[in-house]
C-alpha cells in the first residue's frame, strides 16, 4: 500500500494534472472514453500522454487505431528498460503520446509493491500537461491506488443496475482504502476493515457511521478521516445514454452519493448512445477521428470542457412537463 508520506515524497509539477478513468465494471467504455478524452485534449493543444494502466488486459492502442507497440509497459515493469519514457510512442495525432499496456505476462497484472511505486513515481515525472490513465475493471488495490493518485478520478457508468452498483462499490472501496492509508492505529484499521462488510455487527452502514464510530475511539483520527472524506471528489460520466431518464440518472447518482457518502461527486457529463462508436470501433478507428461531428463526439468535448473548467452539469430541465 502507498502511504501518504510516499505520495507526498513524489515529485509534483505545477501545471501538470493526472486524470484516471475507472469505474468498477467492465464494458462501461473506460478505454473508449480514455482514448476519446485524450484525442479531444490533444486537439485543444494540450500535450497529453495516454497510459494504458489496465495491467494484464491492455488494448488502448487498439482503441486508438494503433498497432501494438514494440515496447510496452511490461518492458518497463520487467526492468528491460530503466526509464518509462523509453516505452513512450508518438501517435499520428499532434500532441498525443501513448504508453501501451502490458498484455503478455500474468504476473504483470499484479505487480509487486516496489514495481508499482517505481511505476507511479515515473508516471508522475513524465513531462506532459495531462497524464491520462486508462484503468482496468474491478476494485483491486492496484486500480484503486492509481485512481487515488489522480487529480481527476473519472468514474464511468452505463445506465444499468449492475454498472451503478459497481460504481458505488468502487467509490466505497476507494474511500476505505484512503481511510486505511491515514489511520495507523490497529484498532481503527480493524474497524475500517469491518465496515467494508455491509452486514457488519457494529451496524456501520455508511462512512458517516464509520467516522462516528472512529471518533468515539479516537477523536483526532475521526477528524482526519472526515477531512479526507471531503477531499475526495470523483467525477461521473454516464456512457451510452438513450433517453432523458438516462441523463437524469447522473443527477440521481450525484444526489445519492451526497446523501450516502456525504461527498460531492461532479457530474462531468454523459455520452449519447451512438452506432457510430461501434462502426468506428469495428473499423479500428477512433470515433473522434472518424466521426468528429457525431453527437457522441460532441458529448466527449463537453466532458473535457467541464473537467477543465471544474464545472459539472446543472440540473435545469423539467422531468414531467
Amino acid at each position: 500500500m502507498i502511504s501518504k508520506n510516499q505520495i507526498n515524497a513524489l515529485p509534483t509539477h505545477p501545471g501538470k494534472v493526472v486524470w484516471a478513468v475507472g469505474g468498477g465494471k467492465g464494458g462501461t467504455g473506460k478505454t473508449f472514453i480514455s482514448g476519446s478524452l485524450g484525442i479531444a485534449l490533444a486537439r485543444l493543444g494540450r500535450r497529453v500522454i495516454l497510459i494504458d494502466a489496465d495491467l494484464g488486459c491492455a488494448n488502448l492502442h487498439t482503441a486508438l487505431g494503433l498497432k501494438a507497440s514494440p515496447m510496452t509497459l511490461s518492458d518497463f515493469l520487467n526492468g528491460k528498460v530503466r526509464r518509462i519514457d523509453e516505452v513512450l510512442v508518438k501517435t499520428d495525432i499532434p500532441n498525443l503520446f501513448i504508453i501501451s499496456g502490458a498484455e503478455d505476462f500474468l504476473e504483470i497484472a499484479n505487480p509487486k509493491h516496489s514495481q508499482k511505486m517505481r511505476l507511479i513515481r515515473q508516471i508522475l515525472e513524465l513531462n506532459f500537461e495531462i497524464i491520462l490513465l486508462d484503468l482496468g475493471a474491478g476494485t483491486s488495490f492496484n486500480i484503486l491506488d492509481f485512481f487515488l493518485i489522480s487529480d481527476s478520478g473519472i468514474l464511468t457508468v452505463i445506465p444499468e443496475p449492475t454498472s451503478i452498483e459497481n460504481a458505488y462499490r468502487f467509490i466505497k472501496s476507494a474511500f476505505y482504502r484512503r481511510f486505511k492509508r491515514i489511520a495507523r492505529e490497529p484498532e481503527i484499521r480493524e474497524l475500517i476493515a469491518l465496515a467494508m462488510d455491509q452486514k457488519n455487527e457494529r451496524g456501520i452502514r455508511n462512512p458517516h457511521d464509520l467516522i462516528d464510530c472512529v471518533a468515539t475511539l479516537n477523536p483526532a483520527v475521526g477528524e482526519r478521516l472526515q477531512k479526507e472524506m471531503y477531499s475526495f471528489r470523483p467525477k461521473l460520466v454516464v456512457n451510452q445514454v438513450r433517453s432523458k431518464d438516462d441523463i437524469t440518472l447522473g443527477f440521481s447518482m450525484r444526489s445519492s452519493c451526497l446523501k450516502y457518502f456525504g461527498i460531492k461527486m461532479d457530474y462531468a457529463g454523459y455520452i449519447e448512445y451512438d452506432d457510430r462508436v461501434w462502426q468506428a470501433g469495428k473499423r479500428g478507428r477512433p470515433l473522434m477521428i472518424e466521426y468528429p461531428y457525431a453527437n457522441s463526439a460532441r458529448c466527449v468535448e463537453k466532458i473535457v470542457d467541464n473537467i477543465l473548467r471544474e464545472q459539472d452539469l446543472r440540473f435545469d430541465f423539467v422531468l414531467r412537463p
Partner: protein
Amino acid sequence: MKPLRDQTCYEILEVRSDATMGEIQRAYELARLTYGRNSIASYSLFSAEELMSIMEKIDVAYRILIDPQKRGEYDRSIGIILEPEKVRSETPSPLRGDLPEPFCLQQELSGKQIKELRESFGISLPEISERTRISISYLVYLEEDNLRALPPETYLRSYVAQYAAALGIEPKQIIDRYLNYFRRTRR
C-alpha cells in the same frame, strides 16, 4: 456534510437557501425520482426503510419550502434573512396569474423584458421550450428581439401566449404588451 437528521430543509433538497420556487420544484421532482420506488440510482446504497425515511424528510422539506409563508417562518427559525425584494421576486407558483411590477405598469413589453421576467422566476429557457414545445431557437429570437427572424404575427401571438402560460401568467397581460412593442418597433 451533516447526517440527514441534522440537515436543514435546503440541505435535504440540495438547493441553496436563495433557491427560487422553480429550483425547489425541480429538486423535489429529482429527489422523488432518485429515492422513489424502482430507482436504480439508490437501491444499492440504502435499504427500503432508509429510502422511506429519506423520502419522508424530502416531503416535509418540500412542503415547507414551496409555501412562501411557511418558508419565511422556517427561514426566520433557522436564522436565514433574505432581503424583502428578493423574496417578493420569487413568486413562481402555478397560481401566479398577474404580471408583477414593474412589468404590469408598462404599456409595452420587449422580448428582453420577458426574458427578465422569466429569469426572475428562476425558470430556464429549455424549461419553457419543454412546456410549450416551441423550439429553443425561436424562443431565443423572441427574447433577443430578433424581429426579422420571428414568424408572422398570427403565429407569434400564439407563441407568446404559450410562453406566458408556461410562466404561469395570464397570457393576455403579456400578449397585448408584447404586440404593442412588436408593432411599433417592426416598422
